[in-house]
């Protein structure tokens, strides 16, 4: 269902969750504890009857977002308004009442059902807790609910272990439906299921939505699932939204470079399909100490070149990789390619030109970099490396190769109707960028 004229049913502002890390007592006393920035100032709206998909790699804060929405974990800052009422300020009693309207479906259908309760009691428990139905009415309601999700009412007397994964997920859905909610947060609802069962559950969710006018927030790592089910999509990267917009818009240009890479990586179930795959350098960085500026700049294939430089984008990416690698490393091994069949080699014995060749090899740099000044800086840095002066090499690279993406944390720029991308490429201050929509 498309966005309606009504206001949002759920409105999230600046939602933030920091976890304490390294928190030994001594560390805490000395003020040395660090913060894991799992979720860093996320805004979103959910409109009645719509499905909002949240995608991203593991460790980017999807589940933290889902759980802090319902205060299953306490957010560090921010507000969550449900029909105007702030959940983060609600008392425990009030919160319990509000959870009647906002329900949660868990990822693991094996861990989220109490093995000691019958299915009837699992689905009936919310009815007891919220005083919705008793006795015969409760039994009727339970069988209705089971039937709604495609199970048989005979199943009410069985225990969870007697069911398959798909059936258990149906039980979880029936439990969520029991209190007649308005919003359901689904955390990876189908990732534990087989393909054919996954399709059944996705169809069920769609049917329930049109029958009861539900609004969903669906968290998933599988983009094809999200594309299928969601009306709007938010792409999370390291606790921040990289791109938000209607599903069709997010799945076609203009892209956030991260969303583009994610999309290109999906294996296509078609042997004749040939697409250009974008490989990102490295893994998702630790949220303990997220990169400065745009958090994606350490892996971004489109990381912006500083003013006045002019070289192939892949060369620029390679130079950035070299710079980033040197920040953490103090040995030549870390920045040179491995040679075959050479044992116990002392890299410090290499000639200047041999060392240069090995560094170029490791980072895929051509014989000469397209930009003359950049080539000179690279040469200087290499001189320092050759002399064993790592700090000097670092400084040379840091001074000369600084992308605007490292300095500026991009806000979400409007690129279309309700479509926003957090990338400097879409900032008017960088007008010459090729990927912009004309």
């Amino acid at each position, binding site marked *: 269902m498309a966005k309606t004229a009504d206001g949002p049913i759920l409105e999230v502002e600046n939602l933030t969750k920091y976890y304490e890390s390294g928190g030994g007592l001594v560390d805490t006393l000395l003020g040395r504890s660090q913060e894991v920035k799992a979720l860093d100032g996320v805004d979103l709206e959910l409109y009645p009857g719509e499905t909002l998909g949240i995608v991203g*790699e*593991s460790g980017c804060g999807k589940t933290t977002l889902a759980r802090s929405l319902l205060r299953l974990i306490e957010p560090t800052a921010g507000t969550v308004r449900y029909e105007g009422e702030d959940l983060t300020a609600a008392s425990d009693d009030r919160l319990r009442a509000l959870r009647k309207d906002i329900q949660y479906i868990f990822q693991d259908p094996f861990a989220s059902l109490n093995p000691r309760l019958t299915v009837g009691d699992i689905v009936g428990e919310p009815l007891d807790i919220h005083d*919705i139905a008793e006795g015969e009415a409760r039994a009727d*309601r339970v069988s*209705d609910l089971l*039937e*709604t999700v*495609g*199970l*048989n009412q005979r*199943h009410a007397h069985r225990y969870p272990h007697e*069911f*398959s994964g*798909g*059936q258990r997920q149906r039980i979880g859905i029936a439990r969520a*439906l029991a209190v*007649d909610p308005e919003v359901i947060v689904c955390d990876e609802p189908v990732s534990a299921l*087989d*393909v*054919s*069962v996954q*399709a*059944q559950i*996705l*169809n*069920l969710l769609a*049917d329930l939505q049109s*029958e*009861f006018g539900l609004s969903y927030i669906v968290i998933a*790592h599988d*983009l*094809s699932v999200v*594309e*299928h089910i969601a009306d709007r999509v938010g792409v999370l990267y390291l606790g921040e939204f990289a791109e938000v917009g209607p599903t069709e818009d997010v*799945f076609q240009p203009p892209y956030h470079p991260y969303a583009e890479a*994610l*999309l290109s*990586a*999906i*294996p*296509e*179930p078609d*042997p*004749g*399909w*040939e*697409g250009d*795959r974008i*490989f*990102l350098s490295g*893994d*998702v960085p630790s949220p303990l100490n997220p990169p400065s500026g745009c958090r994606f700049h350490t892996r971004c294939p489109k990381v912006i070149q500083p003013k006045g430089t002019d070289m192939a984008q892949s060369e620029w990416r390679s130079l950035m990789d070299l710079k980033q*690698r040197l920040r953490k490393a103090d*040995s030549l*091994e*870390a920045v040179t*390619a*491995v040679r075959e069949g*050479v044992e*116990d080699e002392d890299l410090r014995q290499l000639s200047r030109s041999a060392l240069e060749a090995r560094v170029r090899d490791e980072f895929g740099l051509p014989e000469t970099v397209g930009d003359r000044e950049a080539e000179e800086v690279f040469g200087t840095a290499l001189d320092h490396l050759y002399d064993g002066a790592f700090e000097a090499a670092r400084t040379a690279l840091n001074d000369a190769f600084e992308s605007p993406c490292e300095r500026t944390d991009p806000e979400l720029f409007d690129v279309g109707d309700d479509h926003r991308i957090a990338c400097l490429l879409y900032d008017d201050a960088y007008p010459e960028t090729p990927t912009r929509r004309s």
Partner: protein
Amino acid sequence: MALLEVEDLTVKFYTEEGVVTAVDDLSFRIKRGEKFGVVGESGAGKSVTALSVMRLIEEPGRIESGTVRFDGEDLMEMSESEVRDVRGNDIAMIFQDAQTALNPVYTVGEQIAEAIRHHLDYGDAAARDRAIRLLDDVGIPEPEARYDDYPHEFSGGMQQRVVIAMALSCDPDLLIADEPTTALDVTIEAKILDRLERLAEEYDTAIQLITHDLGVIAEMCDRVMVMYAGRAVEKATVEEMYYDPKHPYTVGLMSAIPRIGDRQDRLQTIPGTMPDLVEVPSGCSFHPRCPFAEEECTRKQPPLVDPETGEGVGLSDRAAACLAYTGDLDNELDYEVEVRGRAEQPDDGQPDPRVRRPDSEPVRTDSDPVGLDTDLLDQNDDGEDDAGGLSDG
């Protein structure tokens, strides 16, 4: 020439609930350097097949019958020490969960070097050197520095790379990869598959790739075998499989996956779930879920035949196990398959299901202990949903 030939393999597990026939009379062949995919849902017998090839089936499981010929030699006839020589050296395996495949108390480099020393009789320094090169090959940055790291210092994707490096360390002829990327993010998955493919080519290694992900198969494999309830239901090249599937289960799988760029509202589903292998349905084990099932399907087990001629076939020929091809059914299979790449997808907004099937009722049986989880909503497709639901809402 055939590298691996499995014939009439049957594996049973003697559990308290009863005898589970995990693999039932399975035959297939993998050629040298070939990338062979095995698809199916959980419980299809994919992993048990892989473990049987390595002779790693443990109590209460037992390989009941069949031959597994590797390079002409029957693995079933070998002594335990001969098999151990084959494992790692000639056939290597990558498991789904890298974390449990690595020993937490040894450094990653040492674990790779150990395999090299053991199987290839290398000295310490040479083994270390080869291990570092392998780490570099699989795309671990700073391999020399990371040689001395412990597995917990690696991310999931990096751990899986280490496992791949270990599997390739002795230059095996066959690499069995059991869901190698299922636990990983798509961006990492893409990199690892790409790497695996290139290395297999470089080392001339055949791959048996086990996965439930049809996208991964399409990308990597030359030929595919689809398994259902312990049996092969279809064997074909990837092109045949994706553009012209012959078995109703394959058709169901193809239509159940959401595809990017496909704007249909509902996915086609296969009603029900994989049967309990203690009590496999009679006749064709797929008949309770099959939209084309007839009375005969509950009685007669379909053989793997050539779908064109209905004749028996050799180990690597195109084959499907459905009575429609042996002339036992009254009606014909009626479905259309259409697969289009993302790029050519016209954006006309028309609901255009790629695979269409008639909505016929599956034949009911009462063999399922919990009662068949037939998708009630799917059967009520056209019209009034049972409105019993939330009457008070």
